[in-house]
């Protein structure tokens, strides 16, 4: 009796074939892509069964996997959008070049620069780490004002962060080191909300002697780029380079891109 394909696949996967049978079977697989996919499918099924039989995978775990998958899908679609935005000028360079000629001709250079600066901003801007992660021990002071702000920041509630910031600023006196941290993250929250002018205003308040001064300067330069304020962006970046701070290399690189 002719052995059917499923049985052959099973015997191959269970190492029950002799050398000649294996060679014949491989030739069969290579001759037909649909057979190859059936073999892969059977291999995956065996692997899944082995995990189920071991008790490593049950309904509860599958539900958790499903919820993780949803989160990953969401992150992936956001990431893809970000990558598309970055690569758009490269993909459409011919159209962009043609557009540039027209815009130059019309004397509206800023339109093209605007999209170029957006791309530059996306390339250099990285989300700022939470203060909790910079100083994990700080989380112990759970009742502090900074902690209450950081919880909002950690949960990406940037709007709430800002409204709380405005309310607190109007009220009682705040310890100056706490004030610096809260102000700095208010600036970052403005950036996350796309309100870059307000972010610049916030970073300007961070003094040279304050914590996060270097970071504020860097973020202020990026916010200026996003606002197409290239003159001020260049000035800040040149200062960063001449001061030789941790952001000097990045500043040099972005200055090259701007020039």
């Amino acid at each position, binding site marked *: 009796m002719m052995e059917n394909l499923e*049985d052959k696949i*099973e015997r191959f996967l*269970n190492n029950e074939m002799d050398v000649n049978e294996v060679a014949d079977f491989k*030739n069969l*697989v*290579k*001759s037909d*892509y649909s057979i*190859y*996919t059936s*073999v*892969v*499918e059977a*291999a*995956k*099924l*065996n*692997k*899944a*069964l*082995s*995990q*189920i*039989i*071991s*008790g*490593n*995978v*049950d*309904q509860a*775990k*599958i*539900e*958790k*996997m*499903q*919820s*993780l*998958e949803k*989160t*990953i899908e*969401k*992150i*992936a679609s956001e*990431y*893809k959008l970000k*990558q*598309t935005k970055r690569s758009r000028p490269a993909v459409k360079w011919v159209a962009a070049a043609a557009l540039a000629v027209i815009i130059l001709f019309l004397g509206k250079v800023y339109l093209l620069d605007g999209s170029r600066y957006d791309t530059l901003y996306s390339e250099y801007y*990285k*989300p*700022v*780490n*939470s203060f909790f*992660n*910079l100083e994990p021990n700080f989380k112990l002071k759970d009742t502090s004002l900074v902690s209450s702000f950081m919880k909002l920041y*950690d949960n990406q509630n940037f709007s709430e962060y800002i409204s709380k910031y405005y309310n607190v600023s109007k009220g009682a006196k705040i310890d100056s080191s706490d004030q610096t941290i809260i102000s700095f993250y208010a600036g970052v929250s403005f950036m996350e909300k796309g309100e870059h002018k307000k972010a610049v205003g916030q970073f300007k308040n961070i003094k040279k002697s304050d914590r996060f001064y270097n*970071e504020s300067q860097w973020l202020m330069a990026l916010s200026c780029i996003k606002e197409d304020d290239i003159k001020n962006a260049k000035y800040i970046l040149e200062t960063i380079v001449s001061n030789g701070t*941790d*952001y000097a290399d*990045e500043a040099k690189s972005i200055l090259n891109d701007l020039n």
Partner: protein
Amino acid sequence: MIEDFFKRQYSEKQILEGILANNSRVLTFLYDKIFRLAKSEYSHHANFIDMDVIVSMTSDTLRVFTNKVEIGGFVENNYKGFCRNVIRNLLKQELNRKKLILYGDDDEVFDLEDDLESVAAAETLKSAQWSAVLTAFKFLSDDCQKIISSTVLSAKKEALSFKEVGEQMGKSEGAARKFKHDCMRSLKQHVKNNNINLN
């Protein structure tokens, strides 16, 4: 300094806890790390960068890793090494499939066993596929579940031979083999009836 400040850094312990808690910040951090690994690995094998493939490979790798953590099978303490291996296996599958379509008859180019090893190592099943297999398995009769459990190699035990299983079930070796094949066919049919493809 810049690295610490601008990229959220997590210890391996925080990453594993973050996965179990479905923490989107940790997962975003991981996604970014894996994307860079995937881009770097892909650029070694391809003449041009296909962002769609890299994004999809990144999602698959992160899913494989998080599933592995969820199942409790991640025992290494080098998640980057693990993810790099998954990416390489996925890449290998992608390239092998292209080769198979283009040069199917060439033994030098395509090695089926090697390819299946990479399939098994990547463990790319999605939750819907896991669910379909689990449901189909539970749908089978007790005897079917027993013979499959006995003959499929699992992490906790060696697989028995058909002769041994046959003796336990009061069947001949040939009858035990046929019975298992019938059970597997029924299981696959049940998976298919749920419109689930394991590929």
